[in-house]
């Protein structure tokens, strides 16, 4: 943890000035697109079509009204919400079970499992995009279960994207919870699953929240699979947002307004819960 400012080694001037410069630069870099997004979303169309203006000449909330008509944004929004929400819930539950098994039991294949799961992170998405596309198409043809073009297929895909990191992080987190606690619970008559849900899960809430945030963000932001695996009715935001740019005129003010609208839920959620993510990483992954 940080040293209090009154410590005998108050940082010298050189450090404080470097810090001021570096942090100012990085803040400007980080926030520049946010400023552009916000200011441009409030400009009339002729302002975003002409030269860029730092200070808008006039404000209008028109773009925020128009975005819902130019493309079916509400439907995309709903699709994204369903897909990302379901993928998050499933991914967290599955990761909790898997991490509990790895953290609390010594069994054959334990190492193979962790190494394999982690190494899937290395695969280029493009390598399994093509086969997965074919598998989904073929499952649809032979069994009638529509995975290709459906939300279900996308949910299934996205939940596995966040699974490796989630399992990895939760293993570290569960390891940091004393084993005696759940063993005592078992002696008191809980089964192994009882110990998991009554002792380990409550103690690991920060880690689980962090994993859920990560899973939701992963699903909400994914572009590659969404561009191939969805059709008009199941399209998610990541692909749908490009609808503003296919016309001859790009409605930049509407693009920015829509970007802002789809960003607010995740950014707000993330910033509220980020301290859990840091805590979770400190206890789990970064060791």
């Amino acid at each position: 943890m940080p040293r209090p400012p009154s410590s005998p080694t108050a940082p010298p001037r050189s450090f404080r000035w470097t810090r001021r410069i570096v942090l100012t630069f990085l803040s400007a870099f980080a926030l520049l697109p946010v400023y552009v997004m916000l200011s441009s979303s409030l400009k009339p169309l002729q302002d975003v079509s002409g030269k860029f203006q730092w200070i808008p000449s006039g404000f209008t909330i028109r773009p925020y009204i128009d975005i819902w008509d130019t493309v079916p944004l509400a439907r995309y929004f709903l699709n994204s919400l369903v897909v990302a929400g379901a993928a998050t819930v499933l991914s967290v539950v599955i990761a909790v079970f898997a991490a509990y098994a790895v953290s609390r039991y010594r069994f054959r294949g334990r190492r193979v499992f962790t190494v394999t799961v982690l190494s899937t992170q290395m695969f280029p998405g493009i390598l399994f995009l093509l086969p997965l596309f074919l598998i989904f198409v073929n499952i649809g043809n032979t069994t009638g279960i529509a995975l290709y073009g459906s939300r279900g297929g996308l949910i299934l895909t996205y939940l596995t994207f966040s699974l490796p990191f989630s399992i990895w992080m939760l293993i570290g987190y569960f390891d940091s919870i004393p084993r005696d606690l759940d063993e005592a619970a078992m002696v008191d008559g809980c089964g192994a699953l009882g110990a998991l849900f009554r002792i380990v899960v409550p103690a690991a809430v920060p880690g689980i929240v962090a994993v859920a945030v990560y899973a939701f963000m992963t699903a909400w932001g994914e572009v590659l699979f969404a561009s191939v695996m969805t059709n008009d009715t199941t399209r998610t935001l990541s692909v749908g947002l490009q609808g503003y740019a296919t016309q001859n005129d790009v409605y930049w003010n509407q693009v920015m307004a829509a970007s802002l609208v789809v960003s607010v839920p995740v950014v707000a959620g993330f910033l509220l819960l980020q301290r859990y993510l840091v805590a979770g990483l400190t206890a789990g992954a970064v060791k």
Partner: protein
Amino acid sequence: MTTTVTPGRTDRAGSGESVGTKDARGRLPRIPDRIRHGGLPYLLLLPAVVLELLVHLIPMVIGIAMSFRQLTQFYIRNWGQAPWAAFDNYRVAVDFDAPIGRALLHSFYVTCLFSVLAVGLSWLFGVAAAIMMQENFRGRGLLRAVFLTPYALPVYAAVITWAFMFQRDNGLINHVLHDQLGLTDQPSFWLIGDNSFVALVVVAVWKSWPFAFLILMAGLQNIPRELYEAAAIDGAGVWQQIRKITLPSLRPVNQVLVLVLFLWTFNDFNTPYVLFGRAAPEAADLISIHIYQSSFVTWNFGSGSAMSVLLLLFLLLVTAVYLLLTSRGRKTADA
């Protein structure tokens, strides 16, 4: 299976199980405790294993099989019928004198350069920010939120905004560089031509440095305070503490962080796809986009798969060499 469990644990777990069977009887068939104990972890892992198999491992095996076939759009419904092509797809992909091979090689070079630059800068920004914010000061929490915002923004929303900023006639970048600073004679094109590489690196760094910052910030919290106090008593200044304590303590974190950043950057599809659309300019033709185009635009899945397999082999090799080198480096440093 139970042999790997230490005796003490088996006893305690065993006594717990015998009590637990009472309320678990309804759900699970009555089987001896030892087997139940042995089977439970596998049961817990089952959903994860099935899904990993379905979405990652089986498709990967199929992908490798596909790379040996002449798989065009006529065979998509039953890819097993596609004619066997042996190593033809690979031969075409690595024939660097022919257009397809040359384009792939060029894309590979671009991706390597892009990854090195983007990872290097992201790490540098991340480590600078993490170290500068190790100590508490007024506004630190706010700054942390500011820094993490690019990471939290959905990729497409953020990258579309950058695409707007890089527009030639109405973008912010040209407004600043040309109109306000007068650095260029003409407003430049950023999203086509050679400049597109610069644009791509800027956006990639913007997007990934907060992740480096996040991980390094967590890593710094695990460095014991006593180390700094002892160093301060010995008369070490802040800069010396950073060099002698902070950076060496971050070594294990860095080892994983740099590798993960590299793999993500090298495989990045989202950034170029949203920034440039389907047809990336040649100077910014990253390998994922390149393979995507060769597969879905020309509908030649066989050759696309062969390129993907080559990419995977390259990444495996890099990862293995990297882990070997960094692990050995760490051992000698400890000795």
